[in-house]
């Protein structure tokens, strides 16, 4: 069964250069790019207007921005290696003065993920370490897991905070237990660079993808590979689960965006509005009964899609 997602607007040229990352809250979408500013667009207004520009956030540009579950906190990391923490009050973002990351934080942290409550920041470094900081106690580093040293390209935290997954350039995917500090699984299946890892909302699955062009689904309780979704013909750069966990969204280097049904393990929708790289895809918070997602990348705009209802 195919699904229909209709283009429902876009923030055209939201940034003058490539948009590398998107992060969502219940009302807004944050975007990071090669410029020094972070942009905030409203997702509750059908015109998706720009509501805030956080200028001068990252002098040499920003490659990752993440938010916590309720949208009270965001963290961004720039090409210069600097980590910035932001808090949101009444829809307006400002530097979070109450939070910090330890000054001794290594400069080679690359990808980051924020816990649901916003207290813990997880990061993977360029030499393959996975670290966790407690942002509310002076950013103390509370975990440091070592792997085989391959560049850490992506990281995710499960919604319940019990697991961290990381993806690496040599194709490795690891799952760590934040409670025991152990690594229960080193997941096989991908041999080329991994570009995205994402836990399903209930934590049952981990999806991973990258230069192999397939998306691999793992069962997080057994570590077994349970499905392999193929259809992309270019590197898969970004993954995002729908809020219910029924669908998985993926974006690739050739500009294609796909929606996959987890039930049937099939691609139910493909969008190809651009032939330029998609760097980031994200499901949006549900507005009323309407479900939708956003995509962004080298075409410099944020595109919005809504599920076609009725019919």
């Amino acid at each position, binding site marked *: 069964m195919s699904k229909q997602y209709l283009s429902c607007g876009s923030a055209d040229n939201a940034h*003058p*250069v*490539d948009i*590398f990352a998107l992060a969502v809250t219940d009302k807004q979408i944050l975007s990071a790019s*090669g*410029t*020094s500013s972070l942009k905030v667009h409203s997702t509750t207004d059908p015109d998706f207007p720009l509501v805030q520009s956080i200028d001068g956030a990252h*002098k*040499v*540009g920003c*490659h990752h921005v993440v938010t916590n579950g309720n949208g009270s906190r965001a963290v961004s990391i720039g*090409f*210069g*290696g600097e980590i910035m923490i932001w808090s949101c009050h009444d829809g307006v973002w400002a530097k979070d003065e109450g939070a910090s990351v330890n000054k001794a934080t290594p400069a080679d942290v690359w990808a980051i993920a924020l816990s649901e409550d916003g207290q813990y920041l997880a990061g993977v470094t*360029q030499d393959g370490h996975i670290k966790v900081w407690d942002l509310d106690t002076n950013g103390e580093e509370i975990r440091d897991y070592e792997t085989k040293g391959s*560049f850490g*390209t992506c990281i995710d935290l499960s919604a319940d905070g019990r697991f961290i997954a990381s993806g690496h*350039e040599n194709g490795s995917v690891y799952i760590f237990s934040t409670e025991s500090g152990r690594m229960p699984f080193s997941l096989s299946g991908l041999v*080329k*660079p991994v570009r995205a890892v994402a836990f399903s909302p209930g934590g049952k699955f981990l999806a991973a993808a990258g*230069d192999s062009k397939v998306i691999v689904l793992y069962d997080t309780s057994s570590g077994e590979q349970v499905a392999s979704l193929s259809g992309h013909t*270019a*590197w898969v750069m970004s993954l995002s689960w729908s809020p219910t966990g029924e669908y998985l969204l993926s974006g690739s*280097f*050739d500009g294609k965006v796909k929606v996959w049904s987890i039930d049937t393990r099939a691609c139910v929708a493909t969008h190809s509005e651009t032939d*330029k*790289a998609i*760097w980031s895809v994200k499901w949006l918070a549900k507005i009323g009964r309407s479900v939708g997602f956003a995509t962004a990348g*080298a075409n410099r705009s944020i595109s919005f899609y809504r599920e076609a209802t009725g019919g």
Partner: protein
Amino acid sequence: MTESHLDDMEAEAFELPTNITTIPQTPVHSYIQETLAAILDEMSSPEGQPSITLRQRGKKFASLFINPQTQALETSEMQTYTTYRWPGRDGNEAWRFTVALRVLAAIAEAVQEGLVISKRDIYYSDPACFGTQRTVDTLVDDLAHTMGVDRAALYVEAAAKGLVVGYYRIITRMDAVVDARFSNQDTLVPRTQDIHEVDLADVAWVLVLEKEAVYRRLASSNYHIRSAAGKGILVTAKGYPDLNTRAFVRKLFDHSRQLTHKRPQFYALVDGDPDGMAIMATYKYGSVAFAHENRNLNVPGLHWLGLKIPDVVAGADPLEDNTLIRLTKRDRKKIVAMLSRNPIWAADGPEPEWRIELQRLLILNVKAETEILYDMEGGLSQWLDRKLSSR
């Protein structure tokens, strides 16, 4: 180098105070005579403190900017002078004076004899004293900068580096005609001082290459004559360009601007990595080390033909993945330094596409060498035909 530029330089040099009676022939002669005479004076008095004063070249990234008029990388740093005395404050200053004097003496001899020497010759005259070749290289450039001339005027030449082949003719200052049009023989890039006129009629493109291997492959297949994009000129400096090669490409560019129709276009084909980008930037905007010279050497009309990472990734499939190489730690550090310190790659700088390319390299953590085009569909020639014709 243009005529007016030389005039500027000479005017500047003549403003230096002069206390000798002979009329200096050139700024080089006058500087050498004055400096050596002053040193001898000091040495002949018991309390004497012989010294050499050098004009410093720009070193601070913060003072660099892109001049909108010249479109060159320039420095706003004030001219500063450093004086090394003997015996000076300490052993280091005494040594600095000594090596500067040794280099100046070697240059004085070369100028007087009219014989060209190399920086290598100077270094090997006393390696123990100089310590490293770099000491000599820096001093030669500092002395040239102090006298306001280029290195060739000091009769010091680096080994000729650049190669050129193409559909052009040169008329030399001696009225000789050098016709390169039907040759695929390697020619060293000629000294621009010797060029009176360049005939670029029928030249559609000038392609600057980073890699000598790529240059050789194209030259040996007569690509400059047989290209579907028209007749052209191939140039390489085998990596980062020397002043001579930059001056030659600039000369071609200046002559091309004088043509009233069908002006040749200028392109760069470099590796998809930070050094490739920096090499292209050196041709187009100039180098940090010679910020004071860039306005006479930059090539504002240079277009970036490749290698662009999106092209490579898209075309990587049939080639399999060994075409892409991981960035090294040095590559990543260099990219971050380029992004954060050099105005060419600044957020509000002149080349947003170059900036985003460096950022893409960081995100993908890959780089690619020009040679991968050999294996693209139709090989390097057809790839170039497509790219050169589509502009």
